[in-house]
């Protein structure tokens, strides 16, 4: 019976995981500026963890969140405060801080029982502002808006400090988060989430407690975001309210949209795509444009980014994962009936 599900053909996953952990060595061999690439990948890794959770909430359950940067902030600040001011070990904070963010998610879940769609989006956006105000208000612990220095992560007596070490720390958890997200998505919880999104009646008739599962979606999503926040705080060593801008929340939504909603691998692909595009490809392309046209025009960067996004949404509304599925079906059926698509 194994592998009845084609998605469950797992043979390539170990290969991928080995590749993930070999990548830094490959980069080091290829380029002297590997640290910069690793930094961008680390940032992508943290966002992947968050976006897996966001996808479970907004993609699978259909509860739009425009305040996810705030969950990231809650995780980051909780951990910074727990570790640096209360002396909690980093390893313990890795468990406690996501729980704090999860509890915040639980609280934000209450309005979701009554409202949905764009209204919920606005409510969660409001949550983003509330968290920002809270950070400013609790200045004894958070240093207000002046920002907070955070210690480097210490695990098993080792202090993890450089981009190189951060990479292995972050991507270990990325692998765990993706596997966990995928398991949740493919379990009864994931099915319940999707059922709530597509038909609340069918879900209830099937015995799904809507309130419970909506709250659960917010809680799980908060956990993932809080987890990402812990890694964010300790690997970037300085956090401030400017880090967790409302724009970042919208970026997260764009990432899962680009990846293809309600697919964990889609969230991973979308995050990598946007982060690499925004922080690697576009700046390098901009350098080339400066070189060719001998200019110094700076705001070209946002222009290129916007243009690529625009074209992408027009030509690939199903997202990257949808593109991959189409491609796979195409090759499977080749040379017969190549027109058949996603059915």
């Amino acid at each position, binding site marked *: 019976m194994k592998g009845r599900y084609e998605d469950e053909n797992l043979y390539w996953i170990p290969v991928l995981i080995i590749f993930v952990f070999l990548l830094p060595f490959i980069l080091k061999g290829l380029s002297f500026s590997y*640290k910069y690439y690793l930094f961008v990948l680390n940032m992508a890794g943290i966002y992947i963890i968050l976006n897996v959770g966001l996808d479970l909430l907004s993609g699978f359950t259909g509860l739009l969140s425009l305040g996810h940067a705030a969950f990231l902030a809650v995780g980051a600040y909780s951990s910074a405060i727990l570790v640096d001011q209360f002396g909690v070990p980093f390893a313990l904070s890795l468990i406690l801080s996501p729980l704090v963010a999860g509890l915040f998610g639980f609280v934000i879940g209450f309005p979701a029982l009554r409202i949905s769609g764009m209204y919920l989006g606005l409510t969660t956006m409001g949550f983003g502002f509330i968290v920002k105000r809270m950070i400013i208000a609790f200045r004894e612990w958070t240093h207000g808006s002046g920002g907070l220095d955070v210690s480097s992560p210490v695990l098993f007596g080792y202090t993890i400090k450089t981009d190189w070490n951060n990479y292995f720390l972050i991507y270990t958890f990325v692998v765990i988060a993706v596997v966990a997200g995928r398991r949740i998505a493919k379990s009864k919880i994931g099915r319940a989430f999707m059922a709530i999104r597509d038909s609340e009646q069918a879900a209830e008739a099937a015995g799904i407690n809507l309130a419970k599962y909506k709250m659960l979606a917010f809680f799980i999503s908060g956990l993932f975001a809080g987890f990402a926040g812990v890694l964010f705080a300790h690997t970037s060593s300085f956090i401030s309210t400017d880090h967790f801008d409302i724009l970042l929340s919208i970026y997260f939504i764009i990432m899962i949209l680009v990846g293809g909603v309600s697919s964990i691998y889609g969230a991973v692909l979308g995050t990598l795509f946007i982060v690499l595009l925004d922080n690697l490809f576009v700046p390098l392309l901009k350098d080339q444009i400066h070189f060719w046209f001998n200019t110094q025009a*700076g705001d070209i960067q946002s222009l290129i980014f916007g243009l690529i996004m625009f074209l992408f949404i027009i030509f690939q509304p199903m997202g990257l994962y949808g593109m991959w599925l189409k491609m796979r079906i195409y090759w499977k059926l080749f040379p017969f009936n190549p027109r058949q698509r996603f059915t």
Partner: protein
Amino acid sequence: MKRVVGTLIIIGLLAVGCVKRAPAPGVTDTEVLIGNVQDLSGPLKELGAIIPSGSNMYFQYINDQGGVHGRSIKMLIEDHQYNPQKAVAATKKLVEKDQVFCLFQILGTSPCEAIRPILSETGTPLIAPATNSGTMSDLSREAGDLIFHTDTGYDRQGEILVDYILNQNSDAKIGIVYQDDDYGENVLVGIARAEEEHEITVQKESYQRGAIDFKGQTMNLLKGGCTDVIIAGIVREPVTVMKTAEAMNYKPNFFGTGPTVDARVGKLAGSAGEGFTATYWANMWNSDAPGPILYRELCEKYDIPEPYIGLYHYYGFATAQLLVEGLERAGRNPTRKSLVRGLETFKNWDVGSFPPITYNRNDHAGVDKVQLVQMQNGEQVVITDWLE
């Protein structure tokens, strides 16, 4: 045997690597590469375009004269959209990929704070960060020894303003409207010091960055009977506060810190802005000091478009002078360490752009005084000497 040969080869390679001393990153025989991270598409995008353009004008002038120690200066500019995380990414790119020699003029407090770990990890100096925050010159912070601040801190500015107000009128009741972010936070530090020194209480009203309505704050100041109001805002905020006060027929003396010295404040506020006094930590760009005179000559020489010329463009120019002097003093074969050493030899360095600047091992603060600039009949007029 093979293994021995292999080991020898590796040792040999290592030895060669050590002997051939690599030149400092970003320095070639003909060029010094410096990195700058600005807000080119975020909330402060006007500054992001104007400030480095002022610097580039001066670099052009130096390069036309043969450069520094025969090397021309080239500045790479990246965009951070006023987001610290992006600032880190952009700085990493400049330092690791483009291999810049040093960083220069990075805009904003939180971006500068966020990149401290990169500075300390790679030993890259940051010259003249474009923020007034007093935290930049705190040597006890991470990478503090690599940051050379030029501007008077916001905390000092607030403190000096309170001193000045109380000197003019010892019965003054002072109020402050501040932006509740790192900027306002830093001003409050100075205000708190002044409160302690003069044994007064300053009425504090905060607003959120981007706020457009100041009726509540202004009303509170009116009720509190404040005769002198300090506005720790940028451009729109002081304008709105003063207009709101005028509409309420409330006429205290208005003062501003940091970016409020922008000439647009007086222009936009019109009659309400008359008498508005702001702190400024450099010579006015249109004054007769040697720095501004050279500045205006260069503007003419390089055909700088009219809208660029002014305070911020001049600021870019003046900080570029500081960097060039630092590179000059870093020696014929500059390294990042020799640049730091060179800058630390500054002793009352004065080319007439900033007040005299002194750096040494224990002091990277740069300017620590301000002059007051007042709006009089729609023109900015310097009304005081340098205040400490």
